[in-house]
């Protein structure tokens, strides 16, 4: 059944499907019940599945994740919501020292099928701690998987796959794309969770992005096309593991790569991509891999976020610099 829907609605439908399919799936978090979440992603779920499966929790992020670990040990598959990116840090200890390591610590006897949903990223004019992109902090930790859909269809399918995974998955939801609509086919055969996709083909340069920046990169490619430049756009979809094969194939064709993300460039996922692609494609590259992202500064107040976030002109500027080599 194909239906056009917003990303927030697609995640809601996906959770609903998982809850119907498996009584062990639970949804937990602050305000996820009656309110339906501050972004309404869990809207109506408690009404239909009851408060023992859609669990409003105390305002305690470490408690949410720590209790989810215990529920997973008992055989449940919790999907927990961290209300905003900047609030995940009270839970960071539980995620890093416990959730990520339990499978290895138990020599494989224990599985941790926990999904941590984190609405992330800027561009919605929010206050401090409501616009950050901490994905690299999680990707750096062995034992965690980190994904970020860029559109409603992927959001739907990647949530299904994340819930079915026996590994903990940090599921970053680009909040500024919550209201973007796309066709969602609930009977489709989805791409594997950690497979990157070519979303626009091109020959002159590759733009690689995930989550909120994929749409921007598609706009950049459209603008560049008007200037006669052919840009290929990749939706990486998964930050850990990263699908380097798809990037390599593209770079071997275009010989140029620009990586775009909202997170600060310094020690960010773009650096990892640049390093590995340089190792893999050294003799193919016509220019150094360039990165466009946030600055090494706290996420700024809302009136400055347009200066901070990558936009059309900043990415086009990087494209021009790359092509100038």
């Amino acid at each position, binding site marked *: 059944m194909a239906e056009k829907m917003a990303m927030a609605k697609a995640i809601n439908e996906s959770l609903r499907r998982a809850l119907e399919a498996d009584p062990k799936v639970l949804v937990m978090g602050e305000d996820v019940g009656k309110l339906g979440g501050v972004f309404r992603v869990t809207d109506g779920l408690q009404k239909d599945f009851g408060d023992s499966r859609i669990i409003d929790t*105390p305002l305690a992020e470490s408690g949410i994740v720590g*209790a989810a670990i*215990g529920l997973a*040990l*008992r055989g*449940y598959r919790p999907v927990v919501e961290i209300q905003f990116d900047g609030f995940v840090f009270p839970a960071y200890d*539980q995620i890093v020292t416990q959730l990520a390591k339990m499978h290895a610590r138990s*020599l*494989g006897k224990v599985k941790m099928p926990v999904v941590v949903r984190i609405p992330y990223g800027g561009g919605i004019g929010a206050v401090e701690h409501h616009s950050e992109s901490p994905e690299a902090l999680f990707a750096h930790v062995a034992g965690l998987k980190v994904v970020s859909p860029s559109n409603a269809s992927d959001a739907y399918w990647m949530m299904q796959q994340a819930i079915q995974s026996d590994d903990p998955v940090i599921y970053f939801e680009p909040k500024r794309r919550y209201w973007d609509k796309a066709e969602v086919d609930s009977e489709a055969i989805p791409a594997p969770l950690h497979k990157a996709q070519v979303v626009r083909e091109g020959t002159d340069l590759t733009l690689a992005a995930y989550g909120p920046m994929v749409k921007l990169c598609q706009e950049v490619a459209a603008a560049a096309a008007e200037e006669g430049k052919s840009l290929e756009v990749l939706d990486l979809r998964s930050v850990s*593991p990263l699908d380097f094969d798809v990037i390599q194939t593209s770079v071997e064709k275009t010989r140029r790569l620009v990586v775009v993300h909202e997170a600060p460039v310094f020690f960010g996922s773009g650096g990892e991509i640049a390093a590995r692609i340089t190792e893999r494609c050294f003799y193919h590259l016509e220019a150094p891999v360039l990165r466009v992202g946030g600055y090494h500064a706290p996420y700024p107040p809302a009136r400055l976020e347009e200066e901070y976030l990558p936009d059309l002109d900043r990415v086009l500027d990087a494209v021009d610099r790359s092509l100038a080599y």
Partner: protein
Amino acid sequence: MTVDSSAARKRSAAGKAGTTGSKAGSAGTESGATGASAKRTTSTTRAPRAARAGAKKGAEPELVQLLTPEGKRVKNAEYDSYVAGITPEDLRGLYRDMVLTRRFDAEATALQRQGELGLWASLLGQEAAQIGSGRATRADDYVFPTYREHGVAWCRGVDPTNLLGMFRGVNNGGWDPNSNNFHLYTIVIGSQTLHATGYAMGVAKDGADSAVIAYFGDGASSQGDVAESFTFSAVYNAPVVFFCQNNQWAISEPTEKQTRVPLYQRAQGYGFPGVRVDGNDVLACLAVTRWALERARNGEGPTLVEAFTYRMGAHTTSDDPSRYRGDEERQAWEAKDPILRLRRHLEASNHADEGFFEELEAESEALGKRVREAVRAMPDPDHFAIFENVYADGHALVDEERAQFAAYQASFADAEGGH
């Protein structure tokens, strides 16, 4: 197992005379995994006085004690019924547990000194708290330990040599937690109290009448995770017992650096009972934990038990307690030794003869020998263990790095083969 849950179950079936009013809730539920949801509805286990009342200002709070340091059995109207069925054989069993646990612990300490273990966290002095509480648990209960619960592991049937792998450095766990419902040791202080709470929430969802017990120390009581676990367990009425072994010291910091009120009183602020028990009195620890576990089984939610005890040795073998505490303090606690007091009781009541003690001594030595040999025979892990079990579903980067590692290792073999 000497003092297992069978006594409690029999009492349960008989209505648990003398402890509560209606106990229909837990009757006949020993297997308990299915169809027990209705049994979580009654709320009848009376909170004993010590749990209800806070201490008067300036006065030391009262301890639940059934056995004095001199080994004299004292009456306790609130908790006697929880050990009413205990037999001389059961008492000898508790004694045996404590002696063997101490022997195991001493052997591990010696092995660390000999360089066979990288580190050891001794439980010396805490045998009664661990054996009393551990023997109160039922096979279907689930235990979340910190890293010092060697006595509880013993009660759960975990082979003690399994506990040594992480201290020797061959693994970060070493046993299947689901084999004995005994979770892996957690090193980050207090994290496991939340896992216990979540697990207990799951038990309640399943409609089972199992209970969960989380161990932690006085130092961990300062951690936010412990506070959050109290909050979560209270609001969800989770069947969990928080068993705090207040051994007076968090490495070098005394309990006064953690709290201004007796720890068991913290429970009151979260809306569930707390009780302080003499942590060197194995009988009292058994009784109080049975009471707390029974509350959990009856759907009455969490309980905080503070076992007031003492860490006779160092925090770990890396530590030097002479830098922060005096000998006289330890000597005062030695007079309250948990093993000595039960021995005095067994002897005074003619529940054990010389032959029993001699046999146990021989058994202790055999255990020490077995542990020593097992540690020395423990193989180093395979090099490729680094890459195993990082993920359940696999991960491309791990696969890539494993292949690189294999090629690198093979390059040495090739070089050797070339000569």
